[in-house]
């Protein structure tokens, strides 16, 4: 099958156009909320109870809170963002772009490992469970999935720390380097990545397990599988070659919708493991009402979600020849 590149390009173009109003409304909404906020950014910046003189405060106020309605503030923010200037983080006292550049890589690493892990785990357990619907394995896997889905990731992360770092003492409880070391080596990175990535995988996997299980179980009752069995194709090929392939299609369409979940989960897991990613910056920004940083991170995550949706649609359109990309 040759990929219909013009149709792909048209879809990407249409989605880019559709993303513009979404991002406009999201960012404008943030400025509207901030305008209604009772906090004074100047007080936050100098810290409560500081002895800064009134002139200094006024000078700071001029720098920090531009005058005008929130629409005008939004417009000046937007123009500087388009020019590459994301503003100054009040909490971390660094340019926002620098904060993001330093951290986004670690977050992406964690998310990518956990995402791949949960897809693989989901496929494996989903197929195993669907093989005998209602069997003991199916019931064990399904109930475990429901339970894990109900469990908050931060709680799972804390329990994992207790078990693996404190009781068994096999993995570090958090951070990125061993105590007293500054450089990140591949070995220590792997050791420090293992626990957060595993917890994030475990908290994301149930969704995949349940969907793959349902998809494969349904596919096992359909004609192609019946035909394959009638031709004497081995059970393994039936399961992996026929049932899993068609059962994965509905999962593929919804993979993009997992991006917000992944970000949410990563936010909580990173916080527990003091992983040096976006999450700790988000929480610090939130506790100190650091609007420039929060605004940039929120806009960034909206972009990631939109990109995830687009990717899922593209994958689906390319994987299923019945779908016309032009109609999406």
């Amino acid at each position, binding site marked *: 099958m040759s990929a219909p590149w013009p149709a792909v390009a048209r879809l990407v173009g249409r989605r880019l156009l559709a993303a513009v109003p979404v991002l406009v409304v999201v960012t404008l909404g943030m400025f509207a909320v901030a305008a209604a906020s009772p906090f004074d950014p100047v007080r936050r910046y100098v810290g409560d109870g500081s002895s800064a003189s009134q002139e200094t405060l006024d000078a700071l106020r001029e720098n920090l809170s531009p005058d005008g309605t929130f629409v005008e503030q939004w417009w000046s923010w937007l123009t500087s963002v388009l020019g590459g200037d994301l503003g100054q983080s009040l909490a971390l006292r660094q340019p926002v772009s620098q904060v993001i550049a330093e951290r986004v890589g670690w977050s992406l690493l964690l998310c990518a490992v956990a995402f791949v892990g949960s897809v693989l785990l989901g496929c494996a357990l989903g197929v195993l469970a669907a093989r005998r619907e209602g069997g003991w394995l199916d019931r064990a896997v399904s109930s475990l999935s429901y339970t894990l889905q109900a469990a*908050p990731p931060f709680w799972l992360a*804390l329990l994992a720390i207790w078990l693996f770092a404190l009781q068994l003492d096999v993995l570090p409880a958090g951070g990125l380097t061993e105590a007293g070391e500054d450089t990140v080596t591949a070995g220590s990175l792997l050791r420090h990545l293992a626990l957060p990535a595993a917890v994030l995988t475990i908290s994301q996997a149930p969704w995949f397990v349940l*969907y793959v299980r349902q998809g494969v179980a*349904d596919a096992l*009752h359909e004609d192609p599988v019946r035909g394959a069995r009638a031709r004497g194709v081995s059970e393994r090929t039936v399961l992996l070659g026929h049932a899993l392939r068609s059962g994965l299609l*509905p999962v593929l*369409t919804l993979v993009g919708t997992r991006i*917000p979940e992944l*970000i949410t989960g990563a936010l909580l897991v990173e916080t527990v493991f003091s992983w040096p990613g976006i999450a700790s910056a988000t929480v610090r920004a939130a506790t100190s009402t650091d609007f420039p940083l929060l605004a940039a991170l929120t806009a960034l995550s909206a972009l990631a979600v939109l990109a995830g*949706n687009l990717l899922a649609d593209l994958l689906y359109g390319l994987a299923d020849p019945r779908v016309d990309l032009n109609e999406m």
Partner: protein
Amino acid sequence: MPPEVSPAMSEEPAREPAGREVRPATVEAARAPVPAQGAGSQERSPAGEASEWRAAGNARRGTRRVRAVASVSLVGLAALAVLLVPAFFPLDQQAVDLTAKLLPPSVEHPFGTDDMGRDLLLRSVYGLRVSLLVGLVAALVASVLGLALGCLAGAVGGRVDRLLMRLVDTFTAVPHLLMGIFIVAMFRPGVWPVVASVGLTHWVSTARIVRAEVLSLRARPFVDAAISGGASRLRVASRHLLPAVLPQAGLAAVLMVPHAVWHESALSFLGLGIPAHQASLGTMINGARGSLSAGDWWPTLFPGLFIVVTTLAIAGVAGLWRERINPRRRSELVL
């Protein structure tokens, strides 16, 4: 795409609209089988009679009664506990008993005590009370908002519908927890910002479900009959459409409670929700981090178990309810 999901629990394309224009029919068909919704075996026609009968009578059937009794009684127990316990065992949120700190679970303290010597069972019940209260109010706010906007989109259609659906897309583009963090950060951490943030982020799923339901109802003969009988727009909406969507909306509202509890505990855990000295399941887990790193597991374990058990029990009740609304669907836990 419907990412109406919020934390961990997906209730995905709850009922995919019959007439969503943006997607080709094949996509709709492929998306129909969704596990969390339990729309499965009964609806796959090509498999024939045999599979239909098997699905109805398969092994899951055996545990159905057990699950029903367990989830209803757990929800009832939780409701009784959060209503009655404060009347009999008042809790001083500030009280500290350093002689009894970090006692492991025993007969006297079934869940043990925390690092301030407070009984964890009592505190967990109070935490559940706060979390459920926030969850219920937030779910109510979100459901009313979703019901109103979904009805509006479905019943009016046209430009209003498109506008509202774009709004839904916009709200789903930002992860709910992040939006909650933003709202709480711009206001003060506390109960009301948390309720507002949950209500404002979670209405989209209800709006989608209600809109889909209204769209499919609009094509039914009884609506045509009402219109040709001279019923006004308002009357059609209030007497014919609204009562018919209420069961679905109610189901969505019940399912939203665990979402809201989850959301509240995550925000509180990050220190952005309920004030730290007040018992809520999230603040308790956050407060227990110190004792956990000293190796004491019980202050972390029990509040979290409360979240898991409550979520599963409410999901079980919602599953029973859905079976009543739509008996053709197989009973399955929904989260």
